[in-house]
């Protein structure tokens, strides 16, 4: 304890340092505005788009109808058993992320990620109410006053309004938008809709308004994965230290010899929504939003130096410039080709699966308890549950027949006809029909304890046959 007061205590924990990103204009800022308008535009208007599917189906272009268990996406209609398309879409999404990362780094994080888009929107609202960076800092440090309280109140109210609109738009994807909108306004919508709006209002407000860059730094797994997947040939937002160092203030009219182009103006730090210094190199917190490029370019223009001190560049190029070699970008690298190939395979598989999918599904489930029944004349009977999904919108007539068992009797529960050749099934449009059938055969025709048989479904007016293989069980011989 002797030197207890002599050495300064080390802080083991650092509390969050609030980030006040400064406003900046430039090429990439304008690109970000464009992406934001498109992203938010799609998000808010998509559920309102109509798509005519005929009289028996909803006319909403994109609809996740959980109650009817159907997913509509323009001309695509998916049933619950086709959930693998969603799996495929997720795999495609992940591989796209890898591919784009190998080419252009974290452009997803910088421009299109919902966290980025909404945070950007919230930051903009904050600036409109409280002013730019310096005013915000001053306002934050000042004592509480009517003015300060008013500003904070207006800001948070605006944020919550945006959050409510965000949550409100979400539920329109799950029900007919115009109907639900009217129900929501008149207070007649299901409480689940209100709960979801409330939940998403909270998450939007908390993640976009309060947590902001902490979501990317602490909550999102992608920066960690990305760090492991990037390489020296990926285009990242890069401070060209080979050109910038040694940095320092520069007096107008003095020489630029023997010094770097960085005038240490700190504007790249001020505009950063993540509160980092890009000149420390590529780092986990950096979402590569390129706002520091705009900031640096504006300064370079002012002091008459070429822009691009901070730019989309690769690690490899910096090395090459230091070694006085020709710079360039190598997009066709093995990893890029592999990702592209995987992506193509996923899309081809999904596309062929979708376009070769049938308008009908036939499933047969054999009774397993009991496996078979001995009838009074000694013949053997098996029971089956037949499920037919009609994926068209019209009623369909089918004939169900059996192959592979001689001398069998065939009957449907609830039907007046017994021992018929073919069972006539009428399946209403867009529905699943479930029925039980019995197959009986004289014991002399049951040649083994498990005989392969097939159920064949034929459309009444011809067309393809659907076949499902199953077994006919009998006693051990």
């Amino acid at each position, binding site marked *: *304890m002797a*030197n*207890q007061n002599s*050495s300064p*205590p*080390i*802080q*083991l924990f650092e509390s969050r340092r609030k980030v006040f990103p400064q406003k900046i204009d430039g090429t990439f800022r304008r690109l970000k505005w464009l992406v934001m308008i498109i992203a938010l535009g799609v998000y808010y208007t998509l559920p309102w788009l109509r798509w005519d599917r005929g009289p028996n189906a909803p006319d909403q272009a994109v609809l996740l109808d959980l109650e009817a268990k159907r997913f509509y996406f323009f001309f695509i209609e998916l049933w619950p058993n086709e959930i693998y398309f969603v799996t495929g879409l997720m795999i495609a999404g992940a591989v796209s992320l890898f591919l784009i990362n190998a080419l252009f780094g974290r452009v997803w994080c910088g421009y299109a990620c919902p966290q980025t888009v909404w945070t950007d929107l919230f930051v903009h609202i904050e600036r409109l109410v409280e002013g730019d960076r310096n005013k915000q800092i001053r306002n934050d440090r000042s004592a509480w006053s009517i003015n300060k309280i008013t500003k904070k109140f207006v800001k948070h109210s605006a944020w919550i309004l945006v959050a409510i609109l965000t949550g409100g738009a979400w539920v329109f994807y799950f029900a007919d938008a115009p109907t639900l909108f009217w129900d929501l306004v008149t207070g007649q919508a299901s409480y689940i809709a209100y709960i979801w709006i409330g939940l998403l209002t909270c998450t939007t407000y908390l993640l976009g308004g309060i947590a902001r860059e902490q979501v990317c730094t602490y909550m999102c797994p992608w920066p960690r994965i990305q760090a492991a997947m990037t390489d020296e040939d990926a285009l990242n937002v890069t401070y060209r230290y080979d050109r910038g160092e040694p940095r320092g203030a520069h007096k107008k009219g003095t020489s630029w010899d023997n010094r770097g182009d960085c005038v240490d103006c700190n504007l790249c730090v001020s505009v950063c929504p993540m509160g980092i210094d890009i000149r420390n190199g590529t780092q986990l917190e950096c979402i590569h939003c390129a706002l520091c490029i705009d900031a640096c370019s504006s300064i370079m223009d002012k002091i008459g130096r070429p822009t691009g001190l901070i730019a989309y560049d690769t690690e490899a190029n910096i090395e090459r410039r230091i070694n006085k070699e020709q710079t360039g970008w190598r997009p066709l690298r093995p990893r890029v080709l592999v990702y592209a190939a995987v992506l193509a395979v996923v899309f081809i598989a999904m596309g062929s699966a979708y376009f070769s999918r049938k308008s009908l599904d036939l499933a047969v489930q054999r*009774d*397993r*308890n*009991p496996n078979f*029944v*001995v*009838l*009074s*004349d*000694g013949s053997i*009977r098996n*029971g089956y549950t037949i499920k037919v999904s009609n994926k068209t919108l019209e009623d369909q007539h089918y004939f169900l027949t059996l192959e592979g068992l001689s001398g069998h009797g065939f009957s449907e*529960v*609830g*039907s*007046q006809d017994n021992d018929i050749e073919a069972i006539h099934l009428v399946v209403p449009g867009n529905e699943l029909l479930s029925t*039980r059938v*019995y197959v009986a055969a004289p014991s002399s025709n049951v040649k083994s304890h498990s005989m392969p048989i097939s159920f064949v479904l034929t459309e009444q007016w011809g067309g393809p046959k659907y076949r499902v293989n199953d077994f006919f069980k009998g006693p051990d011989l």
Partner: protein
Amino acid sequence: MSDKDKPVIDEYSGVETTGHDWDGIQELNNPLPRWWLWSFYACILWAIVYWIFMPSWPLVQDYTRGALGYSQRTVVTNQLAALAEARADLGKKLLANEPEKIVHDKGLLEFAYAAGKTAFADNCAGCHGSGAGGAKGYPNLNDDDWLWGGSLEAIETSIRFGIRATHEETRFSDMPAFGVDELLEKEEISTLVTYLQGLSGQPITEPEVLEAGKLLFADNCASCHGDDAKGNREQGAPNLTDAIWLFGKDKKTIYETVHTGREGMMPAWDGRLDPVTIRALAVFIHTRGGGE
């Protein structure tokens, strides 16, 4: 303040330690994270609000009911009542309709099948098996052989009043114990068993006794099982010429049946289950494949 009570400060971090020391390693006494502490306070507050509005504290005879008067028992009771109300219409239709119509009306059949399936699992599966496949002495309800009839009405009567049950309208039959009561000699029973095995198409070892067996059958069995041995549903006498044997078709089992008699028992469900459930059960069993 004595020296012992003085807080020990860690020299590197400036944080108070717990004063514990393990081989020179000291434990820092960092404060709880603020988010944790506030969540904890919020939970305490929530608990107090909960005590006021919801049932919570047990008392000696009772419990605190809470301002909202919420009770899970009431919720379930209401849900059951709502369910019963929702089903009342279908149930009425089920009782009002001719059995023929029920079996061929898809909507009613579906309702009865679903209700019957549940009721079967709860009440019948114990003896007849979860797939209604039966067991020795417990009839297989999937086949087309019926002691008391396989029409919907006959099945319903069997369920309602039972077989050899306590209900006064119960169905009753009596297979005599020919051996135990010394109605037949051992030799005669053996002869009869051989004859019965032949009747149902089983291979037999002593064809020479068939004539004697036929006479014995006519004298002792035909009154109930019929001259053609096809049984009599009025008395619940089984058909002895088919492939289905409730207790077993081997020589030893048939001998035992004739020697000791059989007295299977099916409980009466009238009064224990409501009429709709019994009708649903009858439909369920009827559609297992053997219904007539």
